């Protein structure tokens, strides 16, 4: 068979059921092979960036590897953003790109681009296939590397003539990668030390990151928290990894986390970091972050240990077994942590989320509260978001009790992630209603994928929290740049999002009041079609509380009605 056919046979052998992509010259043989037949569904995106984010959304919603396909040159460079996003958020991704014919490589041929070179800093590994006989081995290794150890993106670049070459295909059963040895279990002595540290703590806390989801270790996390009566904060990446309506869940740490969550993390005497990496958006000023705490750090990636915050007790290993063994070693808590849990509950009562309820305009936070009322805590709803204020409000106001029900771009902060990620999530969870909470700025970066959602029958609900501004930039300019607003006004009415949605064959609705929004959302959640709701909200709203960049939890700025920004004319 040809190299192109072999790629499809490899995908089938890996159990891939869907891939996302867009054809072009150098990948034509692969698309020709698709036309000859494959069990793998191809979802045709409108832009390769969309295809990449769809593959990410698919991977995050399913827990499997996402696959995307693009042609050489611009097709491949359009994948760079999703690859970087997947790298930062440890999302397993196999990206297949076409390349110019081998004899043209290095000649600046049409649509030639050194995509393996460009992506070196943002992939776990990449391969430029130079001999068709290597192809099955490379594909096998690509899937292996993407999902073992710390998950992440890999890239396979296949020149056009390699795709066309005939050879004898067989898929290798094993993979030979002498340099790739992810840890297989945590060191028992370290796990014992971790258990001792937790047992000795008066104010312990589990600080949980996205690694728990990648490790499929949410059950083990729940068991550990319950056995030790340990409070749990979950980062943006881990939202839903621990049931948020559970009494031990104490919110989300970081820049826009509630004050009580940050208080709990910062005043803990033992922090057990679980698949989390002490990101600057979580810690703020590092020297002031949880200064009294002993850190137990559980992670599959040894390089995360003491990268940012010194780990007093490091445990490197797969979280599923590490959490299980840690729970086994831990004595049941009895009542030891009850005073601490009461203290956190008191903070929770003292520092609730607040926002201004003045004026006639629809408040963005109210939009999220209605979303929470109608869609929060449901097993059959998956949320995705873009990046910015709406994302932080989504984190604050939505309850996610189920792993993989909240999918957002964390590390890279990629505006435009929400819509394509929702389409990918829908492909993974056809049973679920997928709701993308987007900003108007974000939406305009990838809105063309509405065509994909409609034509590929992957219906999604998009709620545009439309304040007519690049809202988070506006907030920073207002708070930290003396209100000098610079290049942030997008307008609330151009484009007309409802008409735009209709032009794509979707349902387009506009809501300017809470009642209108509630009605629109009720309609959208049961429509079974792609629906875009343009929720026009008060542009003055800032996202609070906020710990300014580089500041500490004690510097938290809270909502203050007396300091309301006056809307510039």
């Amino acid at each position, binding site marked *: 068979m040809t190299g192109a056919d072999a790629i499809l046979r490899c995908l089938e052998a890996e159990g891939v059921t869907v891939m996302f992509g867009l054809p072009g010259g150098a990948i034509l043989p692969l698309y020709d092979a698709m036309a000859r037949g494959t069990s793998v569904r191809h979802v045709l995106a409108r832009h390769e960036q969309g295809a990449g984010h769809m593959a990410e959304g698919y991977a995050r919603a399913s827990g499997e590897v996402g696959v995307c396909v693009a042609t050489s040159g611009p097709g491949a460079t359009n994948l760079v953003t999703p690859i970087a996003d997947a790298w930062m958020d440890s999302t397993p991704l196999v990206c297949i790109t076409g390349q110019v014919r081998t004899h043209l490589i290095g000649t600046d041929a049409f649509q030639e681009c050194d995509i393996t070179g460009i992506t*070196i800093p943002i992939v776990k590994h990449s391969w430029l296939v130079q001999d068709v006989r290597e192809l099955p081995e490379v594909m096998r290794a690509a899937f292996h590397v993407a999902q073992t150890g710390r998950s992440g993106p890999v890239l396979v670049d296949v020149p056009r003539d390699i795709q066309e070459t005939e050879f004898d295909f067989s898929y290798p059963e094993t993979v030979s990668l002498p*340099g790739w040895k992810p840890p297989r279990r945590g060191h028992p002595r370290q796990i014992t030390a971790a258990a001792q540290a937790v047992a000795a703590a008066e104010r312990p806390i589990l600080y949980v990151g996205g690694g728990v989801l990648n490790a499929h270790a949410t059950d083990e996390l729940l068991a550990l928290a319950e056995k030790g009566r340990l409070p749990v904060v979950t980062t943006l990446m881990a939202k839903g990894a621990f049931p948020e309506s559970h009494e031990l869940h104490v919110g989300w740490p970081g820049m826009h986390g509630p004050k009580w969550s940050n208080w709990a993390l910062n005043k803990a005497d033992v922090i057990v970091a679980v698949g989390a990496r002490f990101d600057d958006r979580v810690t703020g000023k590092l020297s002031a972050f949880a200064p009294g705490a002993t850190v137990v750090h559980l992670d599959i990636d040894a390089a995360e240990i003491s990268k940012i915050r010194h780990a007093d007790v490091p445990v490197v290993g797969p979280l599923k077994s590490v959490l299980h063994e840690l729970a086994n070693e831990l004595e049941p808590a009895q009542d030891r942590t009850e005073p601490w849990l009461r203290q956190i509950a008191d903070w929770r009562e003292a520092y609730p989320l607040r926002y201004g309820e003045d004026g006639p305009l629809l408040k963005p936070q109210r939009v999220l509260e209605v979303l929470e009322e109608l869609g929060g805590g449901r097993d059959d709803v998956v949320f995705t978001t873009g990046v910015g204020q709406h994302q932080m409000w989504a984190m604050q106001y939505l309850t996610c009790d189920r792993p993989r029900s909240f999918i957002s771009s964390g590390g890279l902060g990629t505006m435009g992630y929400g819509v394509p990620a929702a389409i990918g999530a829908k492909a993974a969870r056809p049973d679920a209603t997928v709701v993308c909470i987007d900003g108007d700025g974000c939406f305009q970066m990838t809105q063309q994928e509405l065509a994909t959602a409609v034509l590929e029958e992957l219906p999604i609900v998009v709620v545009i929290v439309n304040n007519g501004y690049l809202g988070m930039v506006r907030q920073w300019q207002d708070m930290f740049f003396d209100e000098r607003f610079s290049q942030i006004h997008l307008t609330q009415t151009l484009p007309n999002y409802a008409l735009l949605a209709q032009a794509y064959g979707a349902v387009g609705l506009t809501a300017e009041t809470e009642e209108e929004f509630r009605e629109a959302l009720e309609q959208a959640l049961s429509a079974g079609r792609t629906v875009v709701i343009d929720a026009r909200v008060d542009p003055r709203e800032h996202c609070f509380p906020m710990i300014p960049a580089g500041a500490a939890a004690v510097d938290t700025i809270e909502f203050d009605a007396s300091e309301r920004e006056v809307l510039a004319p």
Partner: protein
Amino acid sequence: MKHTLSVLVENKPGALMRVTSMFARRGYNIESLAVGPTERHDVSRITIRVDCAQTSLEQIEKQMHKLVNVLRVQELVPGESIERELALLKVAATASKRAELIAMAEAFGARVADLGAESIVFELVGTPEQIDSFEELVRPHGLKELGRTGRLGLHRAAGRANKNRPTVLV
């Protein structure tokens, strides 16, 4: 503080770039770099000299271990390892200066690699410190060109050759 790392990598296209790119991306400056074959045709050795704190060194080692092509990373600790470097130095030398320069070179074990009417090319294999000293010594005579390979190292022959220095218990 300066450290020498000896890194065994698979002899595959791009392996060197993946290693050096990691240094650049994480903000570590490579002071010298030497790459070449080993006793195995499918394995290359990269010897890297880097100036960084101990915690950064641990981070570098761990980040390198994550690269698929990297087989082993070891620090070459002074006293436990042999480090050598090759330098070629073109020094201005008219006929009247030749004898003096050659005598000086002999004291360092440097050889005359080439001789011309106006200059001499010396080759010197030694520890990087010895090469520094020789360089300093000939500089006043007119050092026209200098090329150094960067240091190359191995663990000493007696014992400890295979001593791994894990920084994290795995």
